């Protein structure tokens, strides 16, 4: 009996043991088939957090850089994003300034320069940074960086190639201006479009028809429009001498005001202020195709003998030039808008291509000093061509240093 009882106790104990083993087995297997450890463990924090003033700016930005977490692209490979926090003291409250995706290790904390802006970042004030490496719900913070403050620079080092080019070009221009003032004469290649200006004005005079001068859609702050003002002055002086009316429909009211003054001054210069008619220089509209419709109407009604299209032109260039062609006008065009140059070449009689628009005033004036600047421009072009050849050779033979000399940061 006793043996049977002991056997029963042993059997029951064995059963409990089995049950316990099964329980542990279940527990163990639950743990072993749970999520990847990378999902339950926070990524390693980033190291070497460095905060420094953003170079070449106005002094309201700090750049933060760090070494990537060892779990970014390797290890647990679970970093999703880096968040950058800032505080004005190491013990203070850190506020989030922004984030960058995994794989990136710099962040520019760009603040506002206005004091009343919520994002204001003052110059010369210390800030501390901390970078948080985040996975899906878990994170780890870096050490706090050393203090850094933003300050403005007095020279943008990334623009040195531009400065060198401007100085070089200015030296050329001033040298040739000085030579011209001393009486040296320069040969300038004749331009058909400029040579035709006198003939075109003469033709209008013979026909008793007006001249139409179009600035295009440029506003007064565009350099092509400014160049056009200088040409208008020369053309207006000749029209005053020949007593030929000049019509100038304007797209921009500031351009209209400047054009009125330019023509008035040119007529005064020519000794014919009585010939000046302010109503011939008028505002049409600031809508592109409404302006085209208005100018086309003038072309077809007034049948001007000569049309000048000098300035900034867009899609309207061909519509204007073709209508002028239908009206039988001699047409002289010029623009620095590259996409429109082919249209003008195809549809007008003479075209000033790109830089010729800027040179036209000096050509028309034939003043030695102005021609001197054109000569300077030619030397500038020679330097550019020489640099292009050297650059092509450097790129072909892998001389990266030479190419880097021309890199510009804006």
């Amino acid at each position, binding site marked *: 009996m006793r043996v049977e009882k002991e056997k029963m106790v042993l059997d029951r104990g064995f059963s409990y043991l089995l049950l316990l083993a099964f329980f542990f087995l279940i527990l163990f297997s639950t743990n072993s088939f749970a999520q990847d450890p990378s999902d339950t463990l926070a990524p390693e924090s980033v190291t070497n957090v460095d905060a420094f003033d953003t170079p070449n700016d106005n002094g309201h930005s700090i750049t933060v850089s760090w070494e990537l977490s060892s779990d970014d692209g390797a290890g647990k490979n679970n970093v999703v994003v880096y968040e950058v926090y800032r505080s004005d003291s190491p013990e203070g409250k850190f506020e989030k300034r922004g984030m960058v995706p995994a794989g990136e290790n710099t962040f520019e904390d760009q603040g506002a320069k206005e004091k009343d802006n919520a994002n204001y970042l003052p110059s010369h004030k210390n800030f501390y940074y901390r970078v948080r490496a985040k996975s899906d719900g878990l994170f780890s913070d870096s050490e706090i960086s050393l203090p850094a403050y933003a300050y403005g*620079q007095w020279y943008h080092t990334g623009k040195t190639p531009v*400065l060198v080019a*401007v100085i070089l070009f200015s030296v050329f221009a001033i040298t040739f201006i000085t030579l011209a003032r001393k009486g040296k004469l320069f040969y300038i290649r004749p331009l058909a479009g400029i040579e035709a200006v006198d003939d075109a004005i003469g033709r209008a005079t013979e026909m008793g028809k007006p001249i139409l001068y179009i600035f295009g859609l440029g506003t007064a702050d565009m350099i092509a429009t400014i160049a056009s003002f200088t040409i208008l002055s020369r053309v207006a002086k000749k029209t005053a001498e020949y007593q030929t009316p000049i019509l100038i429909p304007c797209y921009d009211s500031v351009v209209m005001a400047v054009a009125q003054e330019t023509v008035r001054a040119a007529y005064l210069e020519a000794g014919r202020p009585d010939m000046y008619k302010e109503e011939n220089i008028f505002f049409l509209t600031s809508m592109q195709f409404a302006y085209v419709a208005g100018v086309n109407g003038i072309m077809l009604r007034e049948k001007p003998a000569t049309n000048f299209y000098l300035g900034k032109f867009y899609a309207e260039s061909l519509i204007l030039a073709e209508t002028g062609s239908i009206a039988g006008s001699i047409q002289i065009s010029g623009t620095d808008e590259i996409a429109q140059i082919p249209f003008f070449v195809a*549809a007008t009689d003479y075209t000033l*291509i790109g830089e010729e628009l*800027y040179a036209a005033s000096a050509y028309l004036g034939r003043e030695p000093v102005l021609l001197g600047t054109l000569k300077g421009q030619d030397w500038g072009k020679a330097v550019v061509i020489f640099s292009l050849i050297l650059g092509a050779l450097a790129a072909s033979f892998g001389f990266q240093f030479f190419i880097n000399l021309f890199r510009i940061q804006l």
Partner: protein
Amino acid sequence: MRREVPLLICAIVGFTLIIVYFVPHPPFSDMRDLFSDWFSVIAAFAIYLGILNLLKNSVDKVFRKRSGWGFSIVIIAGFVLFVFIGLYEGSDFGEIGTRYYWLYDRIYFPLMATMFAILAFFIGSASYRAFRARNVEATVLLLAAFFVMLGRVPIGYYLTSWLPEGWRMGDVANAIMTYPQMAGQRAVMIGIALGIVSTSLRIILGIERTFLGGE
């Protein structure tokens, strides 16, 4: 004084803006925006100058019955109509569903589209004149245009699909656009950039003063 003061203003503003380009430090960093704001203010006032000029010329034309005075009546009527409806609609005059928007959508917009559509026909007529093989340059232009136009449309592909890749019409068109066209375009751009610098220097240094009157 009448010419010296504008020349001085030109020189000061010109040199300041050159400095602004190279100096990011305040107060230079704010000057570009400042000058831009000043220009906007002047331009805003000049808009009224332009409108007044347009109305004055149009009314004058109608009263004097000068050539095309009927068109001036349309200008005045259109101006009055748009201003009146715009003021009547209040600050939301440009919203969809307003009378102003209806006028814009049903009158102004179709007129604009019509003007723009004329461009397609003018491209045809201009091409016809420009692409005649009168000399060597025009022949080169004609050939380049022939290949580029055919290379950009399906028929060019079907006509030359039997050729090995790299010799088809589309490939020839791409080669023309990528090499000779791009090289020419960049040459013009470099010339323009130098021309801009040269013109700016002439104006800033007061050498070019024709736009102020006189040599």
